[in-house]
């Protein structure tokens, strides 16, 4: 033992030294470093899981978007078709209305024309009567006395009146 250098005190000292190493290193090195590794592992796993979740959500959203787009397109189609149908009906209605209006206008015009003719006729009759009297007066003034004149004129006027009624 002496030749090998083994001494109980030194042996004990080295045992104590090693015990100190174990205690200090596990407090100062192993626990914090392994804890940090564990923490990082957990964080990475969480990150990967989060990324996976986001990816899935994205896919879901994309499919939903696709569906919505398809639906919107279909709906748009339906709306367009309906609008077209409505427009056609309205067109027909408008045309029909225009027709009736036009007919009304025409009828009204006819009535007005009739009234105007009536009015003109009355005027023409009156003027023609006046004219006939004036012509007859002038002619009779030259050929007849005033008494005869009056008699002839009277008969002529009667004739003229009947004539006017006949022609106008």
């Amino acid at each position: 033992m002496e030749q090998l250098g083994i001494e109980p005190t030194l042996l004990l000292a080295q045992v104590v030294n090693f015990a100190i190493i174990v205690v200090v290193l596990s407090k100062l090195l192993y626990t914090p470093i392994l804890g940090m590794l564990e923490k990082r592992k957990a964080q990475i796993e969480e990150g990967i899981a989060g990324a996976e979740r986001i990816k899935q959500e994205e896919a879901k959203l994309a499919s939903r978007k696709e569906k919505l787009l398809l639906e919107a397109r279909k709906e748009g189609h339906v709306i367009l078709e309906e609008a077209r149908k409505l427009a056609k009906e309205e067109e027909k209605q408008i045309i029909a209305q225009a027709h009736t209006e036009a007919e009304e206008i025409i009828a009204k015009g006819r009535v007005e024309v009739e009234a105007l003719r009536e009015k003109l006729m009355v005027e023409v009759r009156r003027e023609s009567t006046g004219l006939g009297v004036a012509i007859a007066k002038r002619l009779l003034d030259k050929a007849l006395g005033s008494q005869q004149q009056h008699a002839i004129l009277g008969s002529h006027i009667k004739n003229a009146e009947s004539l006017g009624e006949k022609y106008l």
Partner: protein
Amino acid sequence: MPHISLAAEKLWIIGGILPITNALLTTWLVMAMLFLFAYRASCRLTLVPSTIQSLAEMIIGGLYDFFHGVIGDHIKLVFPLIASLFLFIIIANWVGLLPGVGTIGFFHGEAVPAGRQEFTPLLRGATADLNTTLALAIVAVGAIQYFGFTSLGASYGGRFFDIRSPIYFFVGLLELISDVSKVVSFAFRLFGNIFAGEVLLAVMAFLMPFIVPLPFLMLELFVGFIQALVFSMLTAVFLNVAVSHGQEGSEGVSHNG
């Protein structure tokens, strides 16, 4: 020829009881290095590691994964012991190879015939001293027994003392002897390898100081790593056997050592 001593040289004696040998001094140096590294690595832990933190994570995480493969889930319990064994032994082995360790020292004694003075190096490889390696071996084997008892309870004793049959009794006796011899084999394996390496390097440096010792220096670096690995690995394997022994032994089938 340099003076080669199997025992570590005593430098001083404190209080008449505790001799301070050069190997003990180196042990303290190694401890200081380990503690400084541990402190620097873990004083500011961040999720995004600094250089020294990532180095520590690489070493500790690597050791953890490696020994997890050997010992399984028991590693949580015994990791501080095994990792400390590995780190202390490898640093002690490598510090012993540093220039100055074993060569810087002082002469004392009578100088009458020139060159016959006794030379005492100030530092000596910590694992090139049997006190250190024996202490490590005792701690390792003691820990094996301790973890065996704590994890299996009294049934662990059945490994050494079994009177169900004379054969089991004899096997238990052999187990006891093998566990005691583990201390010796642990201590002398490490001491022998490292001490032999230092002697080899000293002799080489004496014979041809330039270039020739370099390959041997590389070899000794490798040996230092391998011995640290062997020591901690064997401890892990024996620990594994000890903590799982009862699980097989309870069926009374196998008694392996």
